[in-house]
């Protein structure tokens, strides 16, 4: 039956109500509190903060609740909120060497100054569903080091230890005017410098970067990576206040940093030495930080004079498709009505059919005449 021309508005209002009801589910069960999400779904919260690129645990939790656990939708909510916030300025660069470390491992050295600190991780557990897990029971109290977390600051980065021998590429020099690009304020232009690339990757979809990083390990832009160091913990965020004329600490954020060390046999432009891929992500997000560092390294082929050709090295391809908010919006827009264009295509196919029939008839007539 012909759908009423009017009525879309009413239908949409009801769709919203149905959705709200779905979110709440069985009203006999207690609703989720933001505190519960912040405390018990911390990886979800961290991912939403990272890809939403806004460090606010509570806001991320509210978004996760509102999005019914759909993390990309929650990231979207955070992003849309973030754009409306006034911009006061830019923090000074984080000093991750002064991190209050909760976890720190290196795959390149058995032991090193500061030691390996396993911290909280999935890594060494068997992935067996714990049917007996009592969600309400308090967890067993972990042992803490006698020295206390405060003193864990100033553990040197593994990269700096190797770098002392001149075997590691140096930190890239900052721009002369100290500026850093901001892709939320300027449209991305190609070729993009590394600051913009890293920004893009830090906001990029974990799954997309994971797949690309994985592809470099399987031979598509092979970079021979070693985990130099993964460290996770709190770092101070400093802000240089013009009015005061000095730097003030505005807070602390938890970040995960990955320094990937890559073998490099040298090229026309550089003698052989270890090179680096870098990943830094809000919260506890090792998979993302590692993937990011693999992709970052792969994208540096031009600067290092390497051969290119793999997807992970293709700057336009990677940076244009990493954002899951852009991607999901455009994929899902296919649900919107397209009947005007479809009508045009329908009309074309009919015309082509008619043309073909006319040609076929013409041929038959000619045969008959012969």
């Amino acid at each position, binding site marked *: 039956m012909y759908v009423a021309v009017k009525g879309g508005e009413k239908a949409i209002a009801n769709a919203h109500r149905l959705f709200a009801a779905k979110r709440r589910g069985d009203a006999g069960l207690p609703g989720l509190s933001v505190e519960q999400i912040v405390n018990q779904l911390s990886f979800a919260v961290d991912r939403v903060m990272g890809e939403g690129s806004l460090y606010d645990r509570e806001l991320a939790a509210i978004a996760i609740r509102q999005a019914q656990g759909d993390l990309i939708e929650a990231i979207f909510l955070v992003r849309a909120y973030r754009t409306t916030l006034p911009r006061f300025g830019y923090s000074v660069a984080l000093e991750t060497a002064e991190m209050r470390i909760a976890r720190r491992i290196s795959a390149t050295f058995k032991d090193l100054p500061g030691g390996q600190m396993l911290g909280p991780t999935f890594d060494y557990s068997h992935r067996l569903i714990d049917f007996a897990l009592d969600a309400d029971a308090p967890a067993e109290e972990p042992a803490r080091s006698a020295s206390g977390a405060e003193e864990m600051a100033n553990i040197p980065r593994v990269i700096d230890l190797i770098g002392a021998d001149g075997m590691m590429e140096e930190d890239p020099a900052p721009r002369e005017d100290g500026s850093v690009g901001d892709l939320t304020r300027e449209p991305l232009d190609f070729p993009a410098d590394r600051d913009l690339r890293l920004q893009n990757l830090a906001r990029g979809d974990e799954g997309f970067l994971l797949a690309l990083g994985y592809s470099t390990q399987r031979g598509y832009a092979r970079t021979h990576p070693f985990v130099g160091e993964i460290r996770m913990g709190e770092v101070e965020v400093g802000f240089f206040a013009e009015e005061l004329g000095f730097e003030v600490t505005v807070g602390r954020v938890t970040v995960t940093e990955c320094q990937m060390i890559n073998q490099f046999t040298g*090229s*026309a*432009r550089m003698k052989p030495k270890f090179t680096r891929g870098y990943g830094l992500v809000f919260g506890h997000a090792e998979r993302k930080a590692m993937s990011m560092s693999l992709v970052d390294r792969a994208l540096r082929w031009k600067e290092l*004079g390497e051969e290119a050709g793999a997807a992970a090295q293709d700057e336009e391809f990677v940076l244009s498709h990493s954002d899951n908010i852009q991607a999901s919006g455009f994929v899902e827009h296919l649900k919107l009505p397209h009947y005007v264009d479809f009508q045009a295509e329908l009309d074309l196919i009919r015309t082509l059919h008619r043309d073909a029939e006319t040609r076929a008839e013409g041929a038959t007539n000619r045969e008959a005449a012969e």
Partner: protein
Amino acid sequence: MNASEPLVRVEGLTHYYGNHLGCRDVGFELYESEVLAVVGESGSGKTTLLNCLSTQIVPTSGKVMYRFRDGHVENLFDMSEAEQRVLLRTDWGFVMQNPRDGLRMGVSAGANVGERLMSVGNRHYGNIRKTALDWLERVEIDPTRIDDSPRTFSGGMQQRLQIARNLVTSPRLVFMDEPTGGLDVSVQARLLDLIRRIVADLGLSIVIVTHDLAVARLLSDRIIVMKNGKIIEQGLTDQVLDDPHQPYTQLLVSSILQVGA
């Protein structure tokens, strides 16, 4: 316009890839309707030279003076990228070793030949198609294949199609990079014969890079022998090949004679 002036004059052309030498202090002249072969082993710098001449890479130093249709002479590297690109699609052609790099594999043979015509403003479908048909015939491709994808063509046909695509706008100067490189010997002979005929018909100037002295002998008027990025010998093709002065050239010539014998 003075046709006795060279079309291209190369002076002190030097290119380094980082610390690695591409070519050094190359100089020569190319006149209209002249075919110049650049020979040498791989790594001798001949491809670097070709890429510099065709403005694909900017040399570290040196000049390439080019005489335009209106007679004025300009250094290619003083031109804007826009002007260089116009030159590439009007006055020049570039035939690559692998036809897949030089063709648009996603569109038909006719569109491949017609593209340059359309890019210089031709807007009459019938005329574009007629010209494309003519050119297919000239390069000995069955005109009924005009709407077929070059993917369905043999290597030799693809290479002939690439030549048609480049020559359709009557360029003055065509660069060729080992145009017979990937082909069987019998297919090579046919292609060389075709190139020789068309070049003579159109009075084209050609710079052809090849490691194959037989190709150079068959097509070129003059020859440049390169080694380690430098020109070590140049002159009329017959002279150089019949009476090579440099030991390296003698070695090249003797090796081909041995193969020929």
